[in-house]
């Protein structure tokens, strides 16, 4: 608390609650979230990636892993293509090429690495590109849950949408994850507005 020049102390202000809106900065294509390395040069990285490509088959495999019913691949392909934004979590593993001879000394160049990538999370958003967006299909591979990756995924997607001036960012949340989204700044039933789904009755 810094006293003003006149000698009287400035009143203590509550610091504003940090929001995903703060300090948006330029658009992000890739963000390294987690990294672990080994002395032999192998490493594993978990990366947030904005924009594809995401293979429909990889996504459906992930959906099956989390227990969601299967969807026709052609539809999933079209849905990804027609989404305004597709954000993914990628596990990138770099291993020394087993076919290459190991370096014989420290002056030698390091062993070449084989890099593989695996889809371990996804979120996509539909939008009118101007006012509204709805986030769908948020999922993280169960093997990688519990590390804050889902939160990072959604937060980065929200920030990307905000950078594009999409001011109304919505989603539909299973009751079990309402608090997860609340913590990020989403509100359920804002001003009493209810989410509704069309089911056939006739």
């Amino acid at each position, binding site marked *: 608390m810094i006293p003003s020049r006149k000698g009287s102390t400035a009143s203590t202000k509550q610091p504003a609650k940090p929001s995903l809106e703060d300090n948006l900065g330029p658009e992000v294509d890739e963000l390294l979230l987690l990294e672990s390395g080994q002395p032999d040069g192998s490493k594993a990285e978990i990366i947030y990636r904005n924009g594809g490509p995401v293979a429909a088959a990889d996504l459906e495999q992930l959906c099956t892993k989390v227990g*969601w019913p299967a969807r026709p691949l052609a539809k999933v392909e079209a849905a990804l293509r027609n989404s305004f934004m597709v954000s993914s979590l990628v596990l990138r593993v770099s291993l020394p090429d087993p076919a290459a001879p190991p370096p014989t000394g420290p002056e030698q160049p390091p062993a070449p690495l084989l890099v593989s990538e695996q889809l371990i999370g996804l979120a996509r958003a539909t939008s009118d590109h*101007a*006012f509204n967006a709805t986030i769908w299909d948020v*999922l993280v591979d169960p093997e990688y849950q519990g590390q804050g990756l889902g939160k990072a995924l959604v937060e980065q997607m929200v920030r990307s949408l905000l950078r594009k001036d999409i001011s109304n960012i919505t989603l539909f949340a299973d009751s079990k994850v309402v608090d997860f989204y609340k913590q990020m700044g989403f*509100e359920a039933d804002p001003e009493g507005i209810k989410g509704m789904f*069309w089911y056939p009755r006739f």
Partner: protein
Amino acid sequence: MYGTRVEEAQGGVLRPPPISKPDAEFEAKLGVQFMEGREGILVTELNELFEKVGFPRRDPDRLKIALENTYHVIWVRSTRQSRLAKNGQMIGFARATSDGVLSATVWDVAVNPAWQRSGLGRALMERLTKKLVEDGIPTITLYAEPQVVGLYEKLGYVRDPEGIRGMAFQRKKKDKAGAGALLRV
């Protein structure tokens, strides 16, 4: 699990809502017709309609972009000159965004207050929903203000099915209209 996805309703093909009053009845009794698609829509006129129903006016350039990236638009057009409307005037509107295959969301359902209570809101929603269902989209959603929840329930929309809640990211902005005006249908 961070899922926000709803299981496809009832598997199989969904049956569309019935059209409770045909187009001909609206033409005969009210002198209005239903138009599909954004051709013929002037953003200035759309903004006027939004203003009349209490929605915020939108930046015209962004509104144009929104229309270009909307999956389906249905609007109501007056076919006669009267004291309530000019010939050709837009008196109702509704649109839906979608990925074209899996999910859709309805936005901006608006009927000119002078024309409300004549079934146009319901008519718009029946036709828009029917189109989405016939296109094979299994998840059709909307965000409804409390006073219209009942109307949508009558059409076959269910609120918070299986406890699923509609949520919106809260902006810090000094937007006086609040979340409701942006979100409402």
